[in-house]
């Protein structure tokens, strides 16, 4: 069993006990524990189930590389799934739950999957679920959905807050182990601005656990000196609990600070995303120990040797009473020695190397530890916990020499430098055959904007596993990085560590070498996703030879740990299966983030009201106070309708439409885009922008215009007013103001830059009120002596009018078919004019109306709406707007596009009105179909609904739509199949369903 030792544990405080729960059971730990160490101290080794086979899973590592110990933390708005117990600091009251099991962790039904292992091989999903077709929807998909994902998604809104930090530094050092500290010191001493970040809660990394002597003092004391020196430097910033998440283009780095995860009562933002611009980045990210591939290596109690050592030295936790060490390198002996020195039983060290180890092996032998060289673990024994190991010769096929009783197997397959951050932005790797790992290739670093290397690796992340070499390497990196940013390193020697004199590693990718199929089928590579040696070999046999293909076929390395333990072992197995060298296989792509970061941190402050700015018209508050139902239109909020009393929205729309048709309505039209186009060449420019002619528009006149892109498709429409000889005012749709302005600027700046034209987006400078209905003129005349008669102020003109001393620009234009004026005033006067007009309108029984009434009014008149009748594939000709497309103009944006054969096809879907035979309202987006079938056996569609409303004026449903060859089919009845299986019969009619002659607007 795993237990807490009576003494020891350099990171925990025996005087500060803490209570936490795991699956509802109360347990004790100490301040300084991680959740993993506290669970182990409570003999809780089984902490989860694997993804595919629901195999029992125990804690395997002590850091960010942990594949198994994933838990849900907290509750309600603070619940978070898939958190690694090894990187979760314990606090009093912590609540944790295990994942991926039912009904309970200890008794899990899904575990039958492991007995189905032979029928659930790699690629199972791809092969199995193809047939019979009907099974997909009713059997396979529900099953897969049920099994998908490990943790449960939180149900509540995230109760915490998050923020972003922006920082610029000369040198960023990622990793606060001994190499990072030394590199930061070397850079800091030059005066360079340095930021040093460390993902754990402690400086020093592995060095204090692994031991050694530097400059004549213990490595622990040396580390303390470095920390003190850095602390005293004003140009150095240090942050614990801050992970280097990703390295991006041109020296951009993301740091992920977990500010309050360990102290939820601290207040303030929980996580902080550091957005760092660093001239140089040093990745001192250390190395990760590799598991060994032997049968049963996934049974709880099999752990990385370094993790067993960490739990003992850092947390005073003995993972087992009897720990068998199995290794292919000298580092494994450190665990044996550490355990023995703590008085724990180490029955043997199984060393795969025939010649055994170096100085550390001798030390272990002198402590009386039995050492077996040239040996391997044939098979780990046990179910939910290790009970022993069968030992055999590494060189053989696994015939068992003896069984050794143990409750923990500490394995060391060598170390892999953490090259993730180096690789994120293009840094290349080389295979170091002597050490059997990939390390950064200093000749091919990630490059900056000037083609210079901007990232350096240091210490064990650079392949320098030996303490002495790592320190010299880090010192060099720190100096070089500072020098590259313009600082001058002082002369001085790097610190000197005593060398251990290690014997070389023996690469071991399968234990024993000749393991048979039975053993290999129980030899895990990826512990979270259940990928075994046989799966990778199968993938290779089935032709998935690229490492990227194998990864996706087997899901090797695709779990939440992204293969931190499995990648190298997996690609070594693949290389062997393909009979090629490891570097020929290569690695999969390392992508940020290094470990998962919270969505909250990515969003930062941009949530809720701060997600995006809210644009308010000058009349916004009035709408709010008068029953407006809001409709988001871009960043604006526009009233959809105004609810009076206990009206439903439909009631309100009917009332508003009726008021406008019969008397008077007022609309806040301020959101309409308004762009001033001015200059000697403005007319020529607008002739290119619009499909119709704008240069010949008379001063004081208005003209409806269409805008297309070069494809020929309609992108915007609106009324253009000629203000003076070289000034036009272009109205755009509400949503179009910004991008149409950008569209104009693009052409002016990049194509016709010699044309003398300025544009200005003045949308927000003006308030605009549409005064609409038979009494519109009567209302305005109450406020002005200016002549508003039909003769003096005809349709499609504009005029400066003084309304009660406010100078307004009034456009006589109509989007409703009624007599209509759009009154534009400077934005600051908008609310006052709105109030006055409303007061004056009372005698006419007027109402304010919203966007829905506006839509109904325009649809009754057959006016198109960008975004309803258009979707980016519709031309003016499709909408029967040929009258607004100039035939005289030599050129305009979209003219050539509209000449393309497909756009001239007479069978294109074109705009018509649609009338249901029973008067009901068609569903939006409904399709018309004929009895004919297409090549896929589907009914042929011949049209669709683009706008559909109930018309209070006509007392029936009205709709517009695009129908194949529609305008030639007036009066024809076509079928619209409904979702419920019924069919709506619909007559093709003129799109203008009300006042076709236009008598009402032209009075």
């Amino acid at each position: 069993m795993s237990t807490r030792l009576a003494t020891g544990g350099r990171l925990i405080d025996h005087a500060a006990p803490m209570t936490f729960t795991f699956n509802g059971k109360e347990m004790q730990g100490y301040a300084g524990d991680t959740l993993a160490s506290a669970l182990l101290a409570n003999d809780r080794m089984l902490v989860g189930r694997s993804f595919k086979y629901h195999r029992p899973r125990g804690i395997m590592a002590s850091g960010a590389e942990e594949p198994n110990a994933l838990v849900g933390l907290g509750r309600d708005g603070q619940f978070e799934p898939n958190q690694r117990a090894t990187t979760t600091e314990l606090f009093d009251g912590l609540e944790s739950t295990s994942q991926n099991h039912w009904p309970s962790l200890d008794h899990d039904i899904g575990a039958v999957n492991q007995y189905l292992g032979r029928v659930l091989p790699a690629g199972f999903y791809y092969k199995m679920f193809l047939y019979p077709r009907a099974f997909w929807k009713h059997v396979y998909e529900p099953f897969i959905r049920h099994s998908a994902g490990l943790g449960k998604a939180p149900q509540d809104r995230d109760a915490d807050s998050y923020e972003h930090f922006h920082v610029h530094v000369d040198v960023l050092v990622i990793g606060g182990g001994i190499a990072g500290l030394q590199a930061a010191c070397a850079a800091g001493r030059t005066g360079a601005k340095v930021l040093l970040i460390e993902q754990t809660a402690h400086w020093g990394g592995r060095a204090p656990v692994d031991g050694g002597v530097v400059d004549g003092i213990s490595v622990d004391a040396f580390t303390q000196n470095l920390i003190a020196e850095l602390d005293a430097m004003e140009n150095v910033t240090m942050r614990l609990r801050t992970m280097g998440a990703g390295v991006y283009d041109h020296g951009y780095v993301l740091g992920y600070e977990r500010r309050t995860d360990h102290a939820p009562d601290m207040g303030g933002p929980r996580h902080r995303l550091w957005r760092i611009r660093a001239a140089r980045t040093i990745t001192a990210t250390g190395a990760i120990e590799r598991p060994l591939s032997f049968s049963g290596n996934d049974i709880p109690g099999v752990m990385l040797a370094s993790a067993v050592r960490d739990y003992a030295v850092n947390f005073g936790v003995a993972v087992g009473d009897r720990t068998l060490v199995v290794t292919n390198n000298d580092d494994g002996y450190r665990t044996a020695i550490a355990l023995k020195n703590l008085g724990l039983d180490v029955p043997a060290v199984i060393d795969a190397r025939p010649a055994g180890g170096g100085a550390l092996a001798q030390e272990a032998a002198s402590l009386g530890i039995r050492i077996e060289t040239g040996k391997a673990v044939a098979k780990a024994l046990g179910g939910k916990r290790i009970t022993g190991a069968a030992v055999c010769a590494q060189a053989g096929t696994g015939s068992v020499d003896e069984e050794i009783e143990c409750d923990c197997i500490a394995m060391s397959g060598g170390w892999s430098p953490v090259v993730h951050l180096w690789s994120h932005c293009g840094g290349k790797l080389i295979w170091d055959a002597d050490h059997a790992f990939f390390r950064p290739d200093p000749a091919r670093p990630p490059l900056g904007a000037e083609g210079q290397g901007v990232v350096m690796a240091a210490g064990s992340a650079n392949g320098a596993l030996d303490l002495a070499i790592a320190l010299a390497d880090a010192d060099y990196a720190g100096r070089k990085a500072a020098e590259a940013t313009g600082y001058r390193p002082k002369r001085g020697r790097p610190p000197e560590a005593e060398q251990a004199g290690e014997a070389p590693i023996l690469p071991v990718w399968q234990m024993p070498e000749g393991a048979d199929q039975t053993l290999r089928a129980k030899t895990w590579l990826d512990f979270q996703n259940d990928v075994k040696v046989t799966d990778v070999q199968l993938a290779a046999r089935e032709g998935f030879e690229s490492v990227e293909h194998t990864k996706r076929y087997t899901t090797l390395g695709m779990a939440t740990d992204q293969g931190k333990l499995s990648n190298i072992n997996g690609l070594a197995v693949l290389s062997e299966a393909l009979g090629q060298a490891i570097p020929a296989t290569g690695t999969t792509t390392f992508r940020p983030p290094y470990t998962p970061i919270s969505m909250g941190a990515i969003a930062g402050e941009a949530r809720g009201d701060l997600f995006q700015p809210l644009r308010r018209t000058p009349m916004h508050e009035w709408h709010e106070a008068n029953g407006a139902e809001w409709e988001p239109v871009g960043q604006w909020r526009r009233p959809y309708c105004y609810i009076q009393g206990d009206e439903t929205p439909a009631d309100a729309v009917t009332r508003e439409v009726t008021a406008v048709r019969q008397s008077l309505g007022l609309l806040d039209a301020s959101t309409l885009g308004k762009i001033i186009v001015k200059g000697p060449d403005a007319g020529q420019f607008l002739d290119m922008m619009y499909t119709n002619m704008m240069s010949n528009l008379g001063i004081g006149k208005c003209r409806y215009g269409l805008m297309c892109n070069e494809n020929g498709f309609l992108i915007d429409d609106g009324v253009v007013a000629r203000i003076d000889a070289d000034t036009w005012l272009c109205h755009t749709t509400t949503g179009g103001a910004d991008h149409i302005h950008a569209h104009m600027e693009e052409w002016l700046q990049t194509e016709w830059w010699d044309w003398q034209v300025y544009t200005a987006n003045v949308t927000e400078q003006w308030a605009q009120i549409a005064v609409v209905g038979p009494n519109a003129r009567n209302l305005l005349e109450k406020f002005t002596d200016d002549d508003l008669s039909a003769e003096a102020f005809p349709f499609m003109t504009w005029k400066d009018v003084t309304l009660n001393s406010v100078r307004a620009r009034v456009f006589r234009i109509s989007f409703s078919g009624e007599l209509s004026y759009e009154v534009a005033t400077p934005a600051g006067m908008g609310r006052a004019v709105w109030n006055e007009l409303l007061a004056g309108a009372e005698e006419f029984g007027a109402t304010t109306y919203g966007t829905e009434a506006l839509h109904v009014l325009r649809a009754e008149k057959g006016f198109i709406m960008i975004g309803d009748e258009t979707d980016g594939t519709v031309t003016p000709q499709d909408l029967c707007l040929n009258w607004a497309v100039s035939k005289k103009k030599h050129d305009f944006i979209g003219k050539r596009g509209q000449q393309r054969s497909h756009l001239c096809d007479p069978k294109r879907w074109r705009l018509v009105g649609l009338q249901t035979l029973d008067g009901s309202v068609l569903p939006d987006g409904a399709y018309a179909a004929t009895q004919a079938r297409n090549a896929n056996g589907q009914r042929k569609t011949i049209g669709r609904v683009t706008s559909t409303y109930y018309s209070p004026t006509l007392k029936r449903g009205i709709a517009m739509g695009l129908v194949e060859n529609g305008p030639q089919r007036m009066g024809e009845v076509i079928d619209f199949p409904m979702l419920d299986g019924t069919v709506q019969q619909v007559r093709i009619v003129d799109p203008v369903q009300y006042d076709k002659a236009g008598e009402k607007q032209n009075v």
Partner: protein
Amino acid sequence: MLMLKCPYCGVMADETELSAGGEAHLKRFGPQSSAEDFEGYLFARENPKGVHVERWRHVNGCGKWFHAARCTLTLEVFGTYSAQVTAPPQDIRDAIRAKHPDWRWRDMA
């Protein structure tokens, strides 16, 4: 995240301040053009693994369009320059050819 210097306002701008506008120096083909020319103008784009000349707009800044010559593989930037030219200026070409002596761009001399 790339950084590019806006040649108009002189700001070293983060990519979040900019919007990308695709390949630079396209020649516009209008109403009288052949189907092939128009197709090329509308759809065919260079997509090199290497040096690319491209359009950017300093959208969350001065609002100006400009051009950049950049290696899509190494992210090295050879310079930014005015949008009001039909080909990269000599200093930009020199900077590119210093690293890529054989660099060609479409049918540009």
